[in-house]
């Protein structure tokens, strides 16, 4: 027996040491397998090509990921293609994990990519950490950016103290996607537009009454959905009360009637059985579950979500749904009591940034510019299902004719943005915990107490206020 074991160990060690020798090439060859090295001619050893590494988040769609096709198309048509090799290093992780991984990467020149996708809400914290390159001088050499083709308000989100740190590529708004048939059954003819939280609750009650087998509404409510819970759910409610996360002096409000109202609304939705089962919503796959199993099959009536949700239903989307234009509707989120301005939306977005520790900044910027050029970007933004950051694209027929886009884009005018402040990203994690606590049965008062102490720890007692 012992001999056999020893032989087994010996043989496996030998095999492994062989693999280990091959392990050096693991680095370069495997990248091309997993990341999809899209360089056309790797064996061209005559001249040294420079390499730029690009990091973005992917959901496990691999080569179907909109970012992948966008980058690949850009590379194929790039005039520097012969001198530069692309190394794609997507991070396959949940949203929260993506930010942690990126923050780890950015610390060292060895691991930092040359180009990365950056969520606008992380920007301040990353800039303060010194992770991102100030590209103010680079953009001088980017005519489209200078000539007012980008929305100024959006560029603003990526500018800190007058310095530009990223080129925005997507914007978004949020609202209520609904199933026309189910609403109709509940007595609401198309188009449905609630004017207060009460209107929503009434509709939910009616849906529950008329279609007992469906979940009347679905919204992110867990820690696992990260910023999606903060922004699509909590802030969409909170900002509708007229209060914001911070007061006019930039102090975080940690206790107020508005917060209580918001949490009570969530509590009502989940205790009255309007929301989905907790095990369906409190995990990172909830969007996929919602759109593949419930919404598209008429088993959920309303989804409070971003404008991009509709992108899934296209022919080449993740959950193709032929004829969806006539089956669903999009309503703006009303304020709490219908008070001014009547409807609200939060808006965020993503941009391309160059890490401070990048080794190939000039080339990276050239590629970034190319990515944002008219035709490539038009295709890119349409497959992503987001709202364009370029005015000229907004008027392009291909973009503008997408179902529901004009409505979603029109909400941008009155949109609220998240605090542009380095601690926001942390505060957001405290919000997620608070929301998850409430929907799983913690009293709103207790959840607020925990939230308060979390926020104090993060931003300091002097930067909070109770109302």
């Amino acid at each position, binding site marked *: *027996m*012992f001999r056999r*074991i020893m032989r*087994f*160990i010996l043989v*496996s*060690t030998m095999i*492994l040491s062989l*693999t*280990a020798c091959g*392990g050096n090439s*693991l*680095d370069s060859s*495997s*990248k091309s*397998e*997993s*990341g999809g090295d899209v360089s056309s001619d790797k064996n061209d050893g005559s001249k040294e090509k420079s390499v730029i590494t690009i990091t973005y988040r992917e*959901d*496990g*769609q691999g080569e179907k990921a909109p970012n992948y096709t966008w980058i690949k198309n850009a590379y194929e048509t790039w005039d520097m293609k012969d001198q530069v090799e692309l190394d794609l*290093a*997507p*991070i*396959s*992780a*949940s*949203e929260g*994990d993506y930010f942690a*991984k990126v923050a*780890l*990467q950015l*610390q*060292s020149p*060895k*691991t930092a990519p040359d180009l990365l996708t950056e969520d606008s809400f992380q920007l301040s914290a990353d800039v303060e950490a010194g992770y991102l390159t100030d590209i103010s001088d680079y953009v001088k050499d980017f005519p489209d950016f200078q000539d007012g083709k980008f929305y100024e308000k959006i560029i603003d989100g990526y500018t800190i103290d007058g310095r530009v740190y990223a080129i925005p590529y997507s914007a978004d708004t949020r609202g209520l996607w609904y199933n026309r048939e189910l609403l109709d059954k509940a007595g609401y003819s198309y188009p449905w537009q609630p004017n207060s939280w009460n209107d929503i609750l009434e509709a939910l009650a009616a849906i529950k009454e008329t279609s007992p087998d469906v979940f009347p509404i679905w919204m992110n409510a867990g820690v696992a959905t990260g910023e999606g819970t903060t922004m699509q759910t909590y802030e969409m409610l909170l900002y509708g009360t007229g209060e914001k996360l911070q007061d006019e002096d930039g102090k975080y409000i940690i206790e107020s009637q508005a917060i209580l109202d918001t949490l009570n609304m969530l509590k009502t939705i989940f205790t009255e059985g309007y929301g989905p089962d907790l095990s369906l919503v409190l995990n*990172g*796959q909830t*969007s*996929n579950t919602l759109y*593949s199993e419930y919404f598209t099959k008429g088993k959920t009536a309303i989804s409070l979500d971003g404008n991009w949700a509709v992108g899934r239903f296209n022919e080449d989307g*993740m959950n193709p749904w032929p004829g969806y234009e006539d089956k669903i509707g999009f309503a703006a989120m009303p304020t709490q009591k219908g008070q001014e301005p009547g409807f609200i939306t939060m808006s965020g977005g993503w941009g391309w940034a160059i890490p401070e520790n990048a080794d190939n900044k000039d080339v990276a910027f050239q590629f970034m510019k190319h990515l944002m050029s008219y035709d490539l970007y038009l295709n890119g933004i349409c497959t992503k299902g987001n709202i364009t950051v370029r005015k000229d694209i907004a008027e392009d027929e291909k973009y503008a004719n997408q179902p529901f886009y004009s409505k979603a884009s029109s909400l941008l005018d009155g949109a609220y943005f998240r605090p542009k402040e380095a601690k926001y990203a942390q505060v957001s994690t405290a919000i997620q915990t608070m929301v998850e606590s409430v929907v799983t049965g913690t009293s709103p008062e207790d959840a607020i107490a925990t939230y308060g102490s979390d926020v104090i720890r993060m931003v300091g007692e002097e930067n909070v206020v109770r109302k």
Partner: protein
Amino acid sequence: MRKFIKDGKLPYIILSIMALLFALPLLWVIFASFDVNATQAFKIPTDWTIGNYINVLQDKLNQQAFGVGLLISAIEAVLVVLIAGLAAYPLSRYELRYKKMFMYTILLMTSLPITAVMVPVYKLFLSMNLYDSIFGVIIFMTASALPFAIWLMKNFMDSVPIELEEAAWVDGANVLTSIRLVIAPLMLPGVLVVMMVAFTTAWGNFLVPYILLNTVSKYPVSVKLYQFFGQNGLVVYGELAAYSVIYATPAVILYILSQKYMSQGFIMSGAAKG
């Protein structure tokens, strides 16, 4: 009741029920792995298939992850046994002034939760250029497995009578030779236990590689499974279950192989005796 116990019937019944209860959590993973339409829900498959296994095994990235996982765990296990074995010798055979102190420190180290030191380890690895390196993961896992391994090895070695070694010394063997020829064969059960513990701990660890590695293609199978399970993306439950079964297999095989030595090892280890 007393008679029942004495007859020994009741224990058989209770044990059988307990065993069934312990098997329950396994049912889903086994059924789902053979189910064409597996979901999160528990059900007995109507369409059986081995397609889930084939799909998982055919995926190049999965194969690579298995390779990396084996590489990390096997090298780590070998390193742990070698280093701990060497260290155990002086601790077991010589009178050393610092020995007590040393053993205490080792004991304290065994109790440290690894999660607690991940932040500094990560910073340290960045500065040592070991971040995102498979070798770095191996060496850190080796370090974290060492205290317990040294402790076990010393106890095992204590139980090998020194007289046998003396004979070897008379024949002119040096320390290394006598370790190799006399001690190692005699404490083989112990060596196997240490090796198995080291291998399975490394094989099961997902946090260390998840934090210390960055390139997706360097992820071992544990991290892959964690991502499969704990993250976004469409979950194909049948494949997830099949993946889990395949992933658990090396640990099970290793256990079966070493089972003969296990109880012996446990008795020797002193963990059992105190």
